[in-house]
């Protein structure tokens, strides 16, 4: 093992390696995976001088602790949290030099769910089908981090960042998801479609990288029976038999048999990735342009 590596001292609740994911394999049953908050992952890469496709770490709620074996530049973004190097507070949302052997602690999120840790050179685990992303639905890519694991790092590209600190959107206190109805809105009663786009839901505790689950008014179907399995897109709002909408996130199944009432605009999914359980959710109907 070279000294271009990170030791995982504290893995946190769920920390995974993520990049742009592995689109293009859905017809084989392979989810796309990739960072749930894409803009935050892209920003931490820029702050440490990495290309956009470099792999970063995605934490969940309580961060992680890492010890680089050689000096590296890191940047933490996404969900705001305290960041410390050997106990000293350092910048969140900006590049930070971490000496060899020092302890980087990414703390518990003050708001939001997922923080992103970019490291100069990127996380260099072996790619699977062109991506280093962990896919929690099908188990492709590296396993989630565990205490004591060692992650190889790539060589820095010397693409020096042009920014010291960058503004990032605050995690949502209310999640407004713009949706386009269809393809299966006709499987629901007109009252259910109206309720879907006018009532308030809440983010459920059962949400994960596969889907943002919601609690709220159950949506009644106008049609009984089973829908034959069909292809599913990122952002599809699937309604299982309990009538509560589930928004498909990066690790979603590629085919499914519950009707999709609407599809969330891709740009709104990064906010969905940062909505803590209990956050109010409104689905705002927009027209196709």
């Amino acid at each position: 093992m070279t000294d271009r590596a990170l030791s995982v001292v504290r893995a946190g609740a769920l920390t995974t390696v993520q990049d742009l994911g592995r689109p293009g394999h859905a017809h084989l049953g392979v989810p796309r995976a990739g960072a749930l908050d894409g803009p935050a992952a892209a920003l931490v890469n820029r702050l440490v001088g990495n290309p956009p496709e470099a792999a970063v770490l995605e934490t969940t709620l309580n961060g992680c602790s890492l010890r680089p074996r050689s000096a590296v530049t890191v940047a933490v973004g996404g969900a705001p949290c305290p960041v410390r190097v050997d106990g000293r507070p350092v910048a969140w949302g900006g590049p930070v030099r971490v000496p060899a052997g020092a302890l980087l602690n990414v703390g518990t999120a003050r708001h939001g769910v997922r923080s992103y840790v970019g490291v100069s050179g990127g996380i260099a685990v072996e790619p699977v089908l062109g991506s280093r992303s962990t896919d929690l639905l099908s188990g492709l890519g590296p396993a989630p981090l565990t205490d004591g694991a060692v992650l190889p790092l790539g060589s820095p590209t010397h693409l020096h960042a042009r920014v010291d600190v960058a503004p990032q959107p605050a995690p949502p206190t209310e999640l407004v998801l713009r949706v386009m109805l269809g393809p299966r809105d006709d499987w629901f009663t007109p009252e259910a479609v109206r309720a879907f786009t006018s009532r308030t839901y809440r983010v459920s505790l059962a949400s994960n990288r596969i889907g943002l689950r919601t609690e709220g008014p159950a949506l009644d179907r106008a049609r009984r029976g089973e829908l034959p399995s069909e292809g599913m897109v990122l952002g599809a709002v699937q309604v299982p038999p309990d009538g509560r909408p589930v928004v498909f996130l990066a690790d979603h199944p590629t085919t499914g048999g519950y009707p999709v009432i609407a599809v969330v605009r891709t740009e709104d999914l990064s906010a969905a990735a940062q909505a803590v359980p209990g956050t109010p959710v409104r689905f705002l109907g927009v027209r196709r342009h």
Partner: protein
Amino acid sequence: MSVRALPVGDAALLVEVSSGEEAQALHAELLRRRAEGSLSVREIVPAARTVLLDGLTDPARLAAELTAADVPPAPPRARAVVELPVRYDGPDLADVAAHWGVAPHEVARIHAATEFSVAFCGFAPGFGYLTGLPERYDVPRRATPRTAVPAGAVALAGPYTGVYPRSSPGGWQLIGTTEAVLWDHARVPAALLSPGTRVKFVPTEVVA
């Protein structure tokens, strides 16, 4: 062929036809258009009665074009047949035989005499939904799914045959076991079966 193109978000289309055969023909035609460069799309995902096209720049124009065009029937399949060695030793063989109204060894004979093709994939990487058995051999899923179905299990549900690429929970009726490796991400291609692949099951042993 009657084709309905439903918009999905602002960059995808769900193209719906009326049968599995038509979906396979439409899928073949869309692959042909992509190969010749007349269709630019990130994902082409066939399923039971539909083909999803994702990553389109002008879905409305393509929708109009597809609903106006004639889709030719699926071309004769030039691809080689993938042979999967199978032991017909599944714990649900007797139940399937009862559904079919035949003796258990007849299930193996009928299944192994059928040429299948992969209609679509899903559920797990490398899991294909294989069609080919006549409708009278449709079987229901098990009332209680198993918490762990072993890798290589050959199973039936509805009109489909499938092979579990790795151990997972599952509700299909298990009729046999194969040693074939359905998915290996270090192999090129990783998936042994992909939509359109022709498949024969070759019995190595019958335990009945």
